[in-house]
């Protein structure tokens, strides 16, 4: 199984508010809030750290959750945010992009 990498889209607005991450898609103005666990995954989505490592070190390491349950929940979460276009998913590391650059389009 190849590693999976996740990176935050730059076509969004995002800010922490009282422990929750607020995200708004710049494409269709859909508004999301992420709970504490989802926020940890979001913040770890640097495009370089394999998803399996994020699950093991950040989710299982910081929250009391079984690895298998965590893996399943994280995959579902990643799939949902990817479908909304606010998280990029690849089997290769993803280069960091900034709003307005070619990679961000």
């Amino acid at each position, binding site marked *: 199984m190849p590693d999976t990498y996740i990176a935050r889209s730059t076509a969004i607005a995002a800010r922490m*508010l009282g422990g929750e991450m607020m995200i*708004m898609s710049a494409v269709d103005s859909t508004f999301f809030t992420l709970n504490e666990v989802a926020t940890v995954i979001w913040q770890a989505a640097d495009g370089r750290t394999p998803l399996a490592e994020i699950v093991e070190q950040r989710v299982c390491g910081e929250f009391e959750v079984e690895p298998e349950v965590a893996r399943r929940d994280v995959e579902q979460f990643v799939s949902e945010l990817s479908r909304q276009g606010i998280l990029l998913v690849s089997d290769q590391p993803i280069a960091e992009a900034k709003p*307005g650059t070619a990679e961000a389009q």
Partner: protein
Amino acid sequence: MSLLVEMNDKAMKLGIPLSVHLDVTYRCNERCVHCYLDHDDKGEMTAAEIKNVLDQLAEAGVFFLVLSGGEVFMRQDFLEIVEYARRLLFNVKVKTNGVMIHEYEARRLRELGVEQVQLSVYSHRHEVHDAITKLPGSLKRTIDSIRFLKSQGLKVTMSNVLMTVNRGDQAGTHALAKQLGVAYTLDPTVTPKLDGDTSILSLRVEEDNLDELFANPELVGDVEEFCAPPVPPDEDVMEGYSCSAGHTACYINPYGEVFPCVQFPLPTGNLRRQRFADIWYRSPQMQEVRSIKVKDLTVCSTCSHAGTCTRCPGLAYMEGSMRGPSSSDCEKSFHRTGIPSANMLRKAGMASGGSLIQILPMTV
């Protein structure tokens, strides 16, 4: 309750400035007859200073950032400022007259992920719009820019201010917005100039125009609901606040001065000398604004409209007291519902020379 309302409530409880309106310049290429600004540059912040302010705003938790002016594109570094703001992941809305937006500017705004661009259009007729902006050819240039922005897929809003000089053109301007495929907003509010000059208030529309406006379902939605008599204010209303100014929102002018709102000229500090967080959390003026609940309002706390009025504390401040009524909002509440406000009744009582204490003769 929508997620956005929930977030706003949460920001209110935590004292987070969720929204900031930042004017990057007061310079402008138009000279609108109703404008409340002085367009001379009195030493506006440099791009480096603005970037530093943006860093502080992001740190304070600001999510919604309105970049406005003056005309924002009078600054040659405006797109650099937008780019920096977007790197900090603000939700950015740009207010502009659009006359300097061409294909390149429209494309960059889209590439940078700007949420929305709002342009001012005062009439569908060139002679009326251009007479208001005092810039010949301005309506054509603004419409051209709307087309550039739309072609990039950007969300565009056309905003109109209803005044005596364009009151007959509302329907035509709305039709123009529909034709261009953009959202449309109409505001009958004309505010005094920031230096206190009230001469431009003569541009405010007459009462008949407000009645007509509030009975137009295309503008207000469900007219019956919009014009419904006010529900008597309950304890939640009395313990609440009438506006987000100073609670979850504030305004920063091009010189780094911070105010509770763009329409509330109470200076609370200057970012050239102070940190944003120090002003937001510790300025005595900001704390005073924040302390005022509906129950503390001198006249409005006794008004039947207290729970539904659009009372602007900034306009009230300009009228004499931030705890007092804002007469133009009293008029709106009255024309919306047909029920006079406590302030209107008070003024009518004073005008008729009514005595302060009414004594009923005792009957024996």
